[in-house]
Protein backbone atom coordinates (compact mmCIF):
# COMPACT_ATOMS: atom_id res chain seq x y z
CA UNK A 1 0.00 0.00 0.00
CA UNK A 2 2.63 2.41 1.12
CA UNK A 3 4.77 1.76 -1.95
CA UNK A 4 1.93 2.39 -4.33
CA UNK A 5 1.24 5.67 -2.61
CA UNK A 6 4.87 6.63 -2.95
CA UNK A 7 4.79 6.07 -6.68
CA UNK A 8 1.85 8.38 -7.02
CA UNK A 9 3.65 11.00 -5.00
CA UNK A 10 6.73 10.80 -7.27
CA UNK A 11 4.59 11.18 -10.32
CA UNK A 12 2.98 14.25 -8.86
CA UNK A 13 6.34 15.79 -8.06
CA UNK A 14 7.60 15.07 -11.54
CA UNK A 15 4.45 16.56 -12.92
CA UNK A 16 5.08 19.73 -10.93
CA UNK A 17 7.90 20.50 -13.38
CA UNK A 18 10.85 19.63 -11.19
CA UNK A 19 13.91 18.80 -13.22
CA UNK A 20 16.90 16.65 -12.40
CA UNK A 21 20.31 18.16 -12.77
CA UNK A 22 23.56 16.82 -14.08
CA UNK A 23 26.32 16.97 -11.52
CA UNK A 24 30.01 17.40 -12.16
CA UNK A 25 32.14 15.72 -9.55
CA UNK A 26 35.85 15.74 -9.05
CA UNK A 27 37.65 12.53 -8.10
CA UNK A 28 41.33 12.83 -7.32
CA UNK A 29 44.11 13.72 -7.90
CA UNK A 30 44.68 12.55 -4.33
CA UNK A 31 42.29 9.67 -3.93
CA UNK A 32 43.06 6.34 -2.27
CA UNK A 33 41.69 4.27 -5.11
CA UNK A 34 43.19 6.02 -8.11
CA UNK A 35 46.47 4.07 -7.84
CA UNK A 36 48.78 7.04 -8.09
CA UNK A 37 48.08 10.68 -8.67
CA UNK A 38 45.42 11.04 -11.32
CA UNK A 39 42.10 12.75 -11.56
CA UNK A 40 38.67 12.05 -12.99
CA UNK A 41 36.05 14.60 -13.86
CA UNK A 42 32.83 12.68 -13.47
CA UNK A 43 29.55 13.94 -14.89
CA UNK A 44 26.76 12.16 -13.11
CA UNK A 45 23.01 11.97 -13.19
CA UNK A 46 22.26 10.93 -9.64
CA UNK A 47 24.57 7.98 -9.10
CA UNK A 48 24.89 7.04 -12.74
CA UNK A 49 27.93 8.31 -14.62
CA UNK A 50 27.32 10.05 -17.92
CA UNK A 51 31.03 10.35 -18.53
CA UNK A 52 34.24 10.02 -16.57
CA UNK A 53 37.01 12.00 -18.18
CA UNK A 54 40.51 11.10 -16.98
CA UNK A 55 42.92 13.96 -16.40
CA UNK A 56 46.46 12.63 -16.37
CA UNK A 57 49.94 14.13 -16.31
CA UNK A 58 50.37 14.72 -12.58
CA UNK A 59 53.26 12.25 -12.59
CA UNK A 60 54.85 13.32 -15.86
CA UNK A 61 58.59 13.32 -15.25
CA UNK A 62 59.63 13.67 -18.89
CA UNK A 63 61.38 10.31 -18.81
CA UNK A 64 61.53 10.17 -22.61
CA UNK A 65 63.34 13.50 -22.71
CA UNK A 66 65.72 12.35 -19.98
CA UNK A 67 66.65 9.37 -22.18
CA UNK A 68 67.95 11.80 -24.79
CA UNK A 69 70.25 13.38 -22.19
CA UNK A 70 71.72 10.56 -20.12
CA UNK A 71 72.86 7.96 -22.61
CA UNK A 72 72.04 4.28 -22.98
CA UNK A 73 73.66 2.85 -19.86
CA UNK A 74 72.62 5.80 -17.74
CA UNK A 75 68.96 5.42 -18.62
CA UNK A 76 68.57 1.98 -17.02
CA UNK A 77 67.72 3.27 -13.49
CA UNK A 78 65.19 5.67 -15.00
CA UNK A 79 63.31 2.78 -16.58
CA UNK A 80 62.58 1.57 -13.04
CA UNK A 81 60.55 4.72 -12.56
CA UNK A 82 58.41 4.18 -15.64
CA UNK A 83 56.48 1.51 -13.81
CA UNK A 84 57.74 1.16 -10.29
CA UNK A 85 55.39 -1.75 -9.57
CA UNK A 86 57.03 -3.89 -12.25
CA UNK A 87 60.45 -2.28 -12.61
CA UNK A 88 62.23 -5.47 -13.67
CA UNK A 89 60.08 -5.72 -16.76
CA UNK A 90 60.89 -2.14 -17.74
CA UNK A 91 64.58 -2.93 -17.24
CA UNK A 92 64.14 -5.86 -19.55
CA UNK A 93 62.41 -3.77 -22.21
CA UNK A 94 65.18 -1.19 -22.25
CA UNK A 95 67.85 -3.87 -22.28
CA UNK A 96 66.19 -5.67 -25.16
CA UNK A 97 65.68 -2.62 -27.34
CA UNK A 98 69.34 -1.57 -26.92
CA UNK A 99 70.52 -5.09 -27.68
CA UNK A 100 68.35 -5.18 -30.79
CA UNK A 101 69.79 -1.84 -31.94
CA UNK A 102 73.37 -2.98 -31.49
CA UNK A 103 72.92 -6.66 -32.33
CA UNK A 104 74.10 -7.99 -28.97
CA UNK A 105 73.28 -11.49 -27.84
CA UNK A 106 72.65 -12.06 -24.16
CA UNK A 107 74.29 -15.17 -22.67
CA UNK A 108 71.85 -17.95 -21.84
CA UNK A 109 72.32 -17.75 -18.09
CA UNK A 110 71.79 -13.98 -18.27
CA UNK A 111 68.47 -14.57 -20.02
CA UNK A 112 67.41 -17.01 -17.33
CA UNK A 113 68.36 -14.51 -14.62
CA UNK A 114 66.21 -11.95 -16.43
CA UNK A 115 63.23 -14.27 -16.70
CA UNK A 116 63.50 -15.28 -13.04
CA UNK A 117 63.63 -11.65 -11.91
CA UNK A 118 60.83 -10.65 -14.27
CA UNK A 119 58.48 -13.46 -13.31
CA UNK A 120 58.99 -12.78 -9.60
CA UNK A 121 58.21 -9.17 -10.33
CA UNK A 122 55.13 -10.14 -12.32
CA UNK A 123 53.79 -12.10 -9.36
CA UNK A 124 54.47 -9.25 -6.95
CA UNK A 125 52.86 -6.76 -9.31
CA UNK A 126 49.76 -8.93 -9.72
CA UNK A 127 49.59 -9.39 -5.95
CA UNK A 128 49.50 -5.63 -5.51
CA UNK A 129 46.94 -5.26 -8.30
CA UNK A 130 44.65 -7.94 -6.85
CA UNK A 131 45.15 -6.80 -3.26
CA UNK A 132 44.33 -3.18 -4.00
CA UNK A 133 41.43 -4.18 -6.22
CA UNK A 134 39.67 -6.00 -3.39
CA UNK A 135 40.67 -3.24 -0.97
CA UNK A 136 39.14 -0.60 -3.23
CA UNK A 137 35.95 -2.60 -3.37
CA UNK A 138 35.84 -2.77 0.40
CA UNK A 139 37.50 -5.98 1.55
CA UNK A 140 40.49 -5.06 3.71
CA UNK A 141 41.74 -8.45 4.91
CA UNK A 142 42.75 -10.05 1.60
CA UNK A 143 44.91 -7.01 0.88
CA UNK A 144 47.15 -7.93 3.79
CA UNK A 145 47.40 -11.54 2.61
CA UNK A 146 48.52 -10.31 -0.81
CA UNK A 147 50.92 -7.69 0.51
CA UNK A 148 52.49 -10.19 2.92
CA UNK A 149 53.45 -12.45 0.02
CA UNK A 150 54.64 -9.47 -1.99
CA UNK A 151 56.98 -8.59 0.88
CA UNK A 152 58.53 -12.06 0.63
CA UNK A 153 59.18 -11.50 -3.07
CA UNK A 154 60.62 -8.08 -2.26
CA UNK A 155 62.97 -9.80 0.20
CA UNK A 156 64.11 -12.21 -2.50
CA UNK A 157 64.63 -9.46 -5.04
CA UNK A 158 66.45 -7.39 -2.44
CA UNK A 159 68.82 -10.28 -1.96
CA UNK A 160 69.23 -10.44 -5.74
CA UNK A 161 69.97 -6.79 -6.43
CA UNK A 162 69.89 -4.76 -3.22
CA UNK A 163 66.67 -2.89 -3.94
CA UNK A 164 63.06 -3.61 -3.07
CA UNK A 165 61.25 -1.50 -5.63
CA UNK A 166 63.48 0.22 -8.17
CA UNK A 167 65.82 -2.60 -8.98
CA UNK A 168 68.23 -1.43 -11.68
CA UNK A 169 69.21 -5.10 -11.90
CA UNK A 170 69.54 -5.53 -15.62
CA UNK A 171 72.19 -4.16 -17.93
CA UNK A 172 72.48 -3.85 -21.67
CA UNK A 173 73.74 -7.30 -22.61
CA UNK A 174 72.53 -9.20 -19.56
CA UNK A 175 72.18 -8.66 -15.83
CA UNK A 176 74.41 -6.96 -13.29
CA UNK A 177 75.02 -9.96 -11.03
CA UNK A 178 74.49 -13.68 -11.02
CA UNK A 179 72.02 -15.17 -8.54
CA UNK A 180 73.47 -15.04 -5.00
CA UNK A 181 74.36 -18.36 -3.30
CA UNK A 182 71.30 -20.18 -2.00
CA UNK A 183 68.91 -18.05 -4.04
CA UNK A 184 67.45 -20.99 -5.94
CA UNK A 185 66.70 -22.93 -2.74
CA UNK A 186 65.08 -19.91 -1.09
CA UNK A 187 63.04 -19.24 -4.20
CA UNK A 188 61.79 -22.84 -4.44
CA UNK A 189 60.90 -22.72 -0.75
CA UNK A 190 58.95 -19.53 -1.38
CA UNK A 191 57.14 -21.01 -4.37
CA UNK A 192 56.24 -24.12 -2.35
CA UNK A 193 54.59 -22.05 0.33
CA UNK A 194 53.12 -19.50 -2.10
CA UNK A 195 51.23 -21.91 -4.37
CA UNK A 196 48.74 -23.09 -1.72
CA UNK A 197 48.23 -19.47 -0.72
CA UNK A 198 46.72 -18.73 -4.14
CA UNK A 199 43.97 -21.21 -3.20
CA UNK A 200 43.63 -19.54 0.17
CA UNK A 201 43.23 -16.18 -1.55
CA UNK A 202 40.62 -17.71 -3.84
CA UNK A 203 38.72 -19.03 -0.83
CA UNK A 204 38.87 -15.61 0.79
CA UNK A 205 37.80 -13.49 -2.16
CA UNK A 206 37.41 -15.08 -5.56
CA UNK A 207 34.58 -17.41 -4.69
CA UNK A 208 32.98 -14.96 -2.28
CA UNK A 209 29.40 -14.32 -3.37
CA UNK A 210 29.49 -10.66 -2.36
CA UNK A 211 32.66 -10.05 -4.30
CA UNK A 212 31.36 -11.79 -7.42
CA UNK A 213 28.15 -9.75 -7.30
CA UNK A 214 30.27 -6.62 -7.12
CA UNK A 215 32.51 -7.29 -10.12
CA UNK A 216 30.77 -9.77 -12.44
CA UNK A 217 29.07 -8.20 -15.48
CA UNK A 218 30.55 -4.80 -14.60
CA UNK A 219 32.30 -2.80 -17.35
CA UNK A 220 32.28 -5.47 -20.03
CA UNK A 221 34.87 -4.87 -22.76
CA UNK A 222 34.40 -6.83 -25.98
CA UNK A 223 37.38 -8.33 -27.80
CA UNK A 224 36.86 -5.91 -30.71
CA UNK A 225 36.91 -2.88 -28.41
CA UNK A 226 39.91 -4.22 -26.54
CA UNK A 227 41.91 -4.50 -29.76
CA UNK A 228 40.61 -1.20 -31.12
CA UNK A 229 41.71 0.66 -27.99
CA UNK A 230 44.92 -1.36 -27.98
CA UNK A 231 44.32 -2.90 -24.58
CA UNK A 232 47.17 -5.27 -23.82
CA UNK A 233 48.21 -8.03 -21.48
CA UNK A 234 45.76 -9.30 -18.87
CA UNK A 235 43.13 -6.73 -19.89
CA UNK A 236 43.19 -8.00 -23.48
CA UNK A 237 43.22 -11.63 -22.47
CA UNK A 238 40.30 -11.07 -20.10
CA UNK A 239 38.28 -10.05 -23.16
CA UNK A 240 38.93 -13.48 -24.62
CA UNK A 241 41.87 -12.75 -26.93
CA UNK A 242 44.48 -15.45 -26.41
CA UNK A 243 47.57 -13.38 -26.99
CA UNK A 244 50.70 -13.15 -24.93
CA UNK A 245 53.88 -11.59 -26.32
CA UNK A 246 55.90 -14.19 -24.44
CA UNK A 247 54.17 -16.93 -26.41
CA UNK A 248 53.19 -15.29 -29.70
CA UNK A 249 56.23 -13.10 -30.41
CA UNK A 250 58.66 -15.05 -28.25
CA UNK A 251 61.75 -13.39 -26.86
CA UNK A 252 64.42 -14.31 -24.33
CA UNK A 253 64.18 -17.98 -23.27
CA UNK A 254 60.38 -18.16 -23.25
CA UNK A 255 60.30 -20.63 -26.19
CA UNK A 256 62.09 -23.11 -23.90
CA UNK A 257 59.50 -22.73 -21.16
CA UNK A 258 56.05 -24.19 -20.94
CA UNK A 259 53.28 -22.07 -19.54
CA UNK A 260 49.57 -21.46 -19.88
CA UNK A 261 48.04 -18.30 -21.30
CA UNK A 262 44.83 -17.85 -19.31
CA UNK A 263 41.96 -15.96 -20.92
CA UNK A 264 38.64 -14.65 -19.66
CA UNK A 265 35.78 -17.07 -20.17
CA UNK A 266 32.98 -15.21 -18.47
CA UNK A 267 32.71 -17.87 -15.81
CA UNK A 268 30.78 -15.60 -13.41
CA UNK A 269 29.19 -13.27 -15.92
CA UNK A 270 30.21 -11.98 -19.34
CA UNK A 271 33.55 -12.35 -21.08
CA UNK A 272 35.58 -9.20 -20.48
CA UNK A 273 33.97 -8.04 -17.23
CA UNK A 274 35.82 -6.92 -14.11
CA UNK A 275 35.76 -10.44 -12.72
CA UNK A 276 37.53 -11.82 -15.79
CA UNK A 277 40.25 -9.20 -15.53
CA UNK A 278 40.67 -10.23 -11.91
CA UNK A 279 40.73 -14.00 -12.43
CA UNK A 280 43.15 -13.77 -15.38
CA UNK A 281 45.72 -12.20 -13.05
CA UNK A 282 45.24 -14.96 -10.47
CA UNK A 283 45.83 -17.59 -13.17
CA UNK A 284 48.85 -15.68 -14.47
CA UNK A 285 50.46 -15.90 -11.07
CA UNK A 286 50.03 -19.66 -11.28
CA UNK A 287 51.63 -19.62 -14.73
CA UNK A 288 54.54 -17.54 -13.43
CA UNK A 289 55.14 -20.02 -10.62
CA UNK A 290 55.30 -22.75 -13.25
CA UNK A 291 57.80 -20.74 -15.31
CA UNK A 292 59.99 -20.04 -12.28
CA UNK A 293 60.16 -23.72 -11.30
CA UNK A 294 61.30 -24.64 -14.82
CA UNK A 295 63.89 -21.86 -14.83
CA UNK A 296 65.62 -23.09 -11.71
CA UNK A 297 65.72 -26.62 -13.17
CA UNK A 298 66.90 -25.69 -16.67
CA UNK A 299 69.29 -22.85 -15.96
CA UNK A 300 72.72 -23.47 -17.51
CA UNK A 301 76.04 -22.26 -16.08
CA UNK A 302 78.05 -19.54 -17.72
CA UNK A 303 78.39 -15.78 -17.91
CA UNK A 304 75.39 -13.53 -17.19
CA UNK A 305 76.38 -10.55 -19.29
CA UNK A 306 77.80 -10.08 -22.78
CA UNK A 307 80.80 -7.87 -23.47
CA UNK A 308 79.36 -4.42 -24.00
CA UNK A 309 81.59 -1.34 -24.31
CA UNK A 310 81.25 1.34 -21.66
CA UNK A 311 80.83 3.92 -24.38
CA UNK A 312 77.79 2.26 -25.89
CA UNK A 313 77.17 3.59 -29.39
CA UNK A 314 74.69 1.51 -31.36
CA UNK A 315 74.78 2.04 -35.15
CA UNK A 316 72.32 4.56 -36.56
CA UNK A 317 68.92 3.03 -36.99
CA UNK A 318 65.80 2.31 -35.03
CA UNK A 319 64.17 -0.58 -33.27
CA UNK A 320 60.79 -1.37 -31.80
CA UNK A 321 60.62 -4.03 -29.14
CA UNK A 322 57.60 -5.39 -27.31
CA UNK A 323 57.84 -6.96 -23.87
CA UNK A 324 55.08 -8.66 -21.92
CA UNK A 325 55.11 -6.53 -18.78
CA UNK A 326 52.81 -7.11 -15.81
CA UNK A 327 50.40 -4.65 -17.42
CA UNK A 328 50.88 -6.23 -20.81
CA UNK A 329 52.65 -5.59 -24.05
CA UNK A 330 55.01 -2.67 -23.46
CA UNK A 331 56.41 -1.06 -26.61
CA UNK A 332 59.89 0.44 -26.68
CA UNK A 333 60.71 2.51 -29.74
CA UNK A 334 64.25 3.86 -29.88
CA UNK A 335 65.92 5.84 -32.64
CA UNK A 336 69.71 5.92 -32.66
CA UNK A 337 71.79 8.43 -34.60
CA UNK A 338 75.01 6.55 -33.89
CA UNK A 339 75.97 8.73 -30.93
CA UNK A 340 76.23 7.93 -27.23
CA UNK A 341 72.73 9.24 -26.58
CA UNK A 342 69.42 7.89 -27.88
CA UNK A 343 67.99 10.29 -30.45
CA UNK A 344 64.45 9.47 -29.40
CA UNK A 345 62.93 7.01 -26.98
CA UNK A 346 59.22 6.36 -26.86
CA UNK A 347 57.63 4.05 -24.33
CA UNK A 348 54.10 2.87 -25.00
CA UNK A 349 52.75 1.31 -21.84
CA UNK A 350 49.81 -0.90 -20.95
CA UNK A 351 48.31 1.56 -18.49
CA UNK A 352 48.29 4.27 -21.14
CA UNK A 353 45.98 2.23 -23.36
CA UNK A 354 43.87 1.19 -20.39
CA UNK A 355 43.32 4.81 -19.32
CA UNK A 356 42.09 5.64 -22.79
CA UNK A 357 39.18 3.21 -22.55
CA UNK A 358 37.97 4.15 -19.06
CA UNK A 359 35.74 6.97 -20.31
CA UNK A 360 34.03 4.63 -22.75
CA UNK A 361 33.43 1.72 -20.38
CA UNK A 362 32.34 3.81 -17.42
CA UNK A 363 29.42 5.48 -19.20
CA UNK A 364 26.18 4.34 -17.63
CA UNK A 365 27.84 2.70 -14.64
CA UNK A 366 27.35 3.70 -11.00
CA UNK A 367 29.95 6.04 -9.54
CA UNK A 368 30.99 3.33 -7.09
CA UNK A 369 31.81 1.05 -10.02
CA UNK A 370 34.42 3.47 -11.38
CA UNK A 371 36.71 2.33 -8.59
CA UNK A 372 36.25 -1.29 -9.64
CA UNK A 373 36.92 -0.38 -13.27
CA UNK A 374 40.18 1.45 -12.54
CA UNK A 375 41.37 -1.31 -10.24
CA UNK A 376 40.42 -4.12 -12.62
CA UNK A 377 42.28 -2.46 -15.50
CA UNK A 378 45.30 -2.26 -13.16
CA UNK A 379 46.18 1.31 -14.08
CA UNK A 380 49.45 2.54 -12.63
CA UNK A 381 49.54 6.32 -13.00
CA UNK A 382 53.31 6.86 -13.39
CA UNK A 383 53.25 4.43 -16.27
CA UNK A 384 50.61 6.54 -18.02
CA UNK A 385 52.47 9.81 -17.52
CA UNK A 386 56.09 8.68 -17.72
Amino acid at each position, binding site marked *: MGLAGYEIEVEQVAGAGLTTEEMTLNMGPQHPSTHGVLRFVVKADGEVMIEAIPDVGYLHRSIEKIAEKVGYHGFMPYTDRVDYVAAMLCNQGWGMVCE*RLAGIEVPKRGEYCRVIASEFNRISSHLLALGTMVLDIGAATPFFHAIRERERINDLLEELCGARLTYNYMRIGGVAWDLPPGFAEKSIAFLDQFEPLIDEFNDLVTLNKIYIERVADVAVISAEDA*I*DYNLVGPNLRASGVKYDVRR*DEPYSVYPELEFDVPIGTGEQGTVGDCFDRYIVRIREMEASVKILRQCFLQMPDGPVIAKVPRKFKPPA*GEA*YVRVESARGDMGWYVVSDGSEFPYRCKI*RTGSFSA*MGIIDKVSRGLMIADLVAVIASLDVVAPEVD*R
Partner: protein
Amino acid sequence: MDATAIHQRLKERFGDAVGDCDSAAKDPWIAVQPGAIAAVCRFLKDEPELAFDSLSNQSGVDYNAKDAIEVVYHLYSYAHRHPLVLKVSLPRANPVVSTVEQVWKAANWLEREIYDLLGVVFEGHSDLRRLLLPEDWVGYPLRKDYVEAEEYHGISTRRESMLK
Protein backbone atom coordinates in the same frame (compact mmCIF):
# COMPACT_ATOMS: atom_id res chain seq x y z
CA MET B 1 52.64 -10.95 -45.23
CA ASP B 2 56.01 -9.20 -45.29
CA ALA B 3 56.59 -5.48 -45.77
CA THR B 4 57.67 -5.76 -49.42
CA ALA B 5 54.47 -7.57 -50.40
CA ILE B 6 52.35 -5.09 -48.44
CA HIS B 7 54.22 -2.24 -50.11
CA GLN B 8 53.35 -3.77 -53.49
CA ARG B 9 49.67 -3.88 -52.54
CA LEU B 10 49.71 -0.30 -51.32
CA LYS B 11 51.49 0.92 -54.45
CA GLU B 12 48.85 -0.72 -56.67
CA ARG B 13 46.08 0.88 -54.71
CA PHE B 14 47.44 4.33 -53.85
CA GLY B 15 50.14 4.97 -56.45
CA ASP B 16 52.41 7.90 -55.69
CA ALA B 17 50.81 8.63 -52.33
CA VAL B 18 52.84 5.70 -51.02
CA GLY B 19 56.58 6.27 -51.01
CA ASP B 20 59.50 3.90 -50.73
CA CYS B 21 59.78 0.84 -48.55
CA ASP B 22 62.89 0.30 -46.45
CA SER B 23 62.84 -3.47 -46.23
CA ALA B 24 66.42 -3.71 -44.99
CA ALA B 25 65.64 -1.91 -41.73
CA LYS B 26 65.25 -3.88 -38.49
CA ASP B 27 61.56 -3.06 -38.60
CA PRO B 28 60.78 -2.57 -42.32
CA TRP B 29 58.87 0.65 -42.89
CA ILE B 30 56.89 2.32 -45.63
CA ALA B 31 56.79 6.07 -46.25
CA VAL B 32 53.32 7.54 -46.81
CA GLN B 33 52.30 11.02 -47.99
CA PRO B 34 50.59 12.99 -45.18
CA GLY B 35 47.40 13.45 -47.17
CA ALA B 36 46.92 9.72 -47.72
CA ILE B 37 47.66 8.35 -44.26
CA ALA B 38 44.06 7.99 -43.09
CA ALA B 39 43.00 6.23 -46.31
CA VAL B 40 46.06 3.95 -46.25
CA CYS B 41 45.40 2.99 -42.63
CA ARG B 42 41.73 2.34 -43.34
CA PHE B 43 42.74 0.09 -46.25
CA LEU B 44 45.33 -1.75 -44.13
CA LYS B 45 42.74 -2.40 -41.45
CA ASP B 46 39.83 -3.42 -43.68
CA GLU B 47 41.61 -5.60 -46.24
CA PRO B 48 41.14 -9.17 -44.94
CA GLU B 49 44.58 -10.36 -46.02
CA LEU B 50 46.27 -7.50 -44.19
CA ALA B 51 43.85 -6.94 -41.27
CA PHE B 52 45.98 -4.57 -39.20
CA ASP B 53 43.48 -4.47 -36.39
CA SER B 54 45.64 -2.69 -33.84
CA LEU B 55 47.73 0.43 -33.61
CA SER B 56 50.48 -0.80 -31.33
CA ASN B 57 52.32 2.49 -31.05
CA GLN B 58 52.33 5.93 -32.57
CA SER B 59 55.17 8.32 -31.95
CA GLY B 60 56.62 11.55 -33.21
CA VAL B 61 60.30 12.16 -33.87
CA ASP B 62 61.79 15.60 -34.45
CA TYR B 63 64.54 15.60 -37.10
CA ASN B 64 65.55 19.24 -36.94
CA ALA B 65 68.57 18.69 -39.22
CA LYS B 66 66.20 17.49 -41.95
CA ASP B 67 63.68 20.19 -40.98
CA ALA B 68 61.03 17.52 -40.55
CA ILE B 69 58.91 15.89 -37.92
CA GLU B 70 58.10 12.28 -38.56
CA VAL B 71 55.06 10.51 -37.20
CA VAL B 72 55.72 6.79 -36.90
CA TYR B 73 52.89 4.23 -36.82
CA HIS B 74 53.61 0.76 -35.49
CA LEU B 75 50.79 -1.47 -36.63
CA TYR B 76 50.11 -5.04 -35.65
CA SER B 77 47.66 -7.61 -36.84
CA TYR B 78 46.30 -9.96 -34.20
CA ALA B 79 44.54 -11.86 -36.96
CA HIS B 80 47.71 -12.65 -38.96
CA ARG B 81 50.39 -11.90 -36.34
CA HIS B 82 52.37 -9.58 -38.59
CA PRO B 83 53.72 -6.07 -37.90
CA LEU B 84 54.19 -3.05 -40.13
CA VAL B 85 55.68 0.41 -39.69
CA LEU B 86 54.43 3.50 -41.52
CA LYS B 87 56.13 6.87 -41.52
CA VAL B 88 54.81 10.28 -42.41
CA SER B 89 57.20 13.18 -42.81
CA LEU B 90 55.86 16.65 -42.02
CA PRO B 91 57.42 20.11 -42.36
CA ARG B 92 58.65 21.38 -38.99
CA ALA B 93 57.12 24.80 -39.46
CA ASN B 94 53.61 23.50 -39.99
CA PRO B 95 53.24 19.86 -38.99
CA VAL B 96 49.67 18.94 -39.87
CA VAL B 97 48.41 15.46 -40.69
CA SER B 98 44.99 13.85 -40.69
CA THR B 99 44.04 11.77 -37.69
CA VAL B 100 43.69 7.99 -37.73
CA GLU B 101 41.38 8.09 -34.71
CA GLN B 102 38.50 6.93 -36.89
CA VAL B 103 40.50 3.83 -37.84
CA TRP B 104 41.79 2.85 -34.39
CA LYS B 105 40.38 4.34 -31.19
CA ALA B 106 43.79 3.91 -29.56
CA ALA B 107 45.03 6.80 -31.70
CA ASN B 108 42.95 9.26 -29.70
CA TRP B 109 45.33 9.38 -26.74
CA LEU B 110 48.49 8.62 -28.70
CA GLU B 111 47.86 11.59 -31.00
CA ARG B 112 47.04 13.83 -28.06
CA GLU B 113 50.42 12.95 -26.59
CA ILE B 114 52.25 13.72 -29.84
CA TYR B 115 50.37 17.02 -30.10
CA ASP B 116 51.28 17.78 -26.52
CA LEU B 117 54.98 17.00 -26.70
CA LEU B 118 55.84 17.71 -30.35
CA GLY B 119 53.16 20.08 -31.56
CA VAL B 120 51.87 17.97 -34.44
CA VAL B 121 48.30 18.94 -35.29
CA PHE B 122 46.01 16.04 -36.15
CA GLU B 123 43.20 17.24 -38.38
CA GLY B 124 39.81 15.77 -37.64
CA HIS B 125 40.76 14.66 -34.12
CA SER B 126 37.77 14.71 -31.79
CA ASP B 127 39.53 16.04 -28.71
CA LEU B 128 42.93 17.53 -29.52
CA ARG B 129 44.02 18.89 -26.13
CA ARG B 130 47.29 18.62 -24.28
CA LEU B 131 47.45 15.29 -22.47
CA LEU B 132 50.37 15.26 -20.06
CA LEU B 133 51.36 18.91 -19.70
CA PRO B 134 49.20 21.71 -18.29
CA GLU B 135 47.01 23.38 -20.90
CA ASP B 136 48.85 26.71 -20.60
CA TRP B 137 52.30 25.20 -21.11
CA VAL B 138 54.41 27.03 -23.68
CA GLY B 139 56.32 25.04 -26.30
CA TYR B 140 56.75 21.40 -27.21
CA PRO B 141 59.38 19.74 -25.00
CA LEU B 142 60.33 16.85 -27.26
CA ARG B 143 61.37 19.16 -30.07
CA LYS B 144 65.13 19.27 -30.31
CA ASP B 145 65.30 23.07 -30.12
CA TYR B 146 63.05 23.33 -27.07
CA VAL B 147 64.26 25.66 -24.37
CA GLU B 148 62.61 25.34 -21.00
CA ALA B 149 60.98 28.55 -19.76
CA GLU B 150 62.67 30.24 -16.78
CA GLU B 151 59.58 29.87 -14.67
CA TYR B 152 56.07 28.51 -14.68
CA HIS B 153 53.48 30.53 -12.73
CA GLY B 154 56.19 32.00 -10.54
CA ILE B 155 57.85 28.62 -9.89
CA SER B 156 61.46 28.76 -10.99
CA THR B 157 62.65 25.92 -13.20
CA ARG B 158 66.31 26.68 -12.47
CA ARG B 159 68.16 24.64 -9.88
CA GLU B 160 71.61 25.12 -8.48
CA SER B 161 74.02 22.40 -9.49
CA MET B 162 74.29 19.61 -6.93
CA LEU B 163 77.96 19.21 -7.82
CA LYS B 164 79.98 22.05 -6.37
